């Protein structure tokens, strides 16, 4: 009797050799599936237009501007949502962009653009961020839908054909170089001269923008 108890006691006291390995493996697998599922679900949830415009900064400024454009409403009803253009579709690039977005969470918490005036003041910087990103990846987010290989130049206007068959075909220009301000309003281009080269759109170079900075002569304002 004593011997039997001592044997059980020793079995209970000694850590299991096989069960622990089994629990680690199976538990780790199940836990991994749950974590990955939750992570990916959360990631996809933040990758929707509904999530983007749940903040008033996005809803009241950029989303309102988008609504009149061809990417929002058109004859065929195909439309682009925020992440279609602003988040890379490839997973690794998407994670990289999501990590960059922690800066945007910071901006949200501290109200960097929480009024229309603040947004307007930062519009050039925000726009040029996207110009720089799209120039660097050869307008990848445009090309996810607009594939150069399948463009029918005979269906394009003469101007479009000329631009697409020369600069775009040779790779000297990318989509964003010309197609700036198509989904949102352009920033005040008078400030563009101060931007570094890689943040500028060639189509928005100084000298082609408004001359609003020119002060009228004093005698002209007098009459």
């Amino acid at each position: 009797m004593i011997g039997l108890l001592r044997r059980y006691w020793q079995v209970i006291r000694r850590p299991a050799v096989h069960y622990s390995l089994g629990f680690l493996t199976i538990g780790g697998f199940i836990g991994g599936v749950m974590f990955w599922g939750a992570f990916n679900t959360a990631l996809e949830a933040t990758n929707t237009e509904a999530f983007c415009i749940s903040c008033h900064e996005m809803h009241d400024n950029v989303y309102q501007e988008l609504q009149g454009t061809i990417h929002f409403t058109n004859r065929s009803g195909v439309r682009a949502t925020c992440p279609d253009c602003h988040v890379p579709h490839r997973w690794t690039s998407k994670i990289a962009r999501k990590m960059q977005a922690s800066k945007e969470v910071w901006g949200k918490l501290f109200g960097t653009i929480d009024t229309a005036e603040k947004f307007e003041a930062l519009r050039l910087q925000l726009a040029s961020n996207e110009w720089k990103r799209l120039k660097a990846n050869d307008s990848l987010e445009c090309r996810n839908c607009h594939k150069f290989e399948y463009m029918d130049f005979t269906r394009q206007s003469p101007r479009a054909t000329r631009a697409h068959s020369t600069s775009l075909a040779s790779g000297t220009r990318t989509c964003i170089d010309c197609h700036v301000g198509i989904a949102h309003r352009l920033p005040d281009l008078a400030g563009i001269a101060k931007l570094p080269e890689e943040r500028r759109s060639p189509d928005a170079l100084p000298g082609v923008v408004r001359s609003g900075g020119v002060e009228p002569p004093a005698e002209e304002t007098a009459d």
Partner: protein
Amino acid sequence: MRALPVMRPVSLVVLCAALGFAPAATLAQRPVPSDLPGHYDRMRGNVPIPEEATPPPLTNPDNSDVRRSRAYAMQPPVVPHKIEGYQLDRNANRCMFCHARTRTEQSQAPMISVTHFQDRDGNFLAELSPRRYFCLQCHVPQAPVNPLVDSRFVDVETMLRRSGSPSVPPGGPAPASPREPGQR
């Protein structure tokens, strides 16, 4: 050029009578000018004034990029391409992306004329004069629509030919486009 709906004086008088001096409740019963002969409004059709007319469907603007001849020498050239969605506000001027002096080599678009660099005192500025900034004040896109108002405009070359003047070029003047003066 944009054809603005021209309201005839008679219509104006009747409109004032209908809107200004008649009680609102009796408006529907009153004979409205468009029911009377000779008061047909080209834009509204036969719709009575108190009712809202159904606008005609939108037409696609001309996008051919073919320059049109001007009806007279000083006419601002019309826009032979689509300008839908072009931004033209204090931030940016989309027209100048192609029509600015520095952009014409690449775009092959006509440069804004020298008058656009002048301020109202005739001084030449380095770039587009602020008073010429809003292109659509003078230059308008074209669409194949029927003119609302008939035009009796006669090209000066046609007029000279009628009077037998020898100043007409040998090839004769270009025939004026029938929708040129009254188009929108």
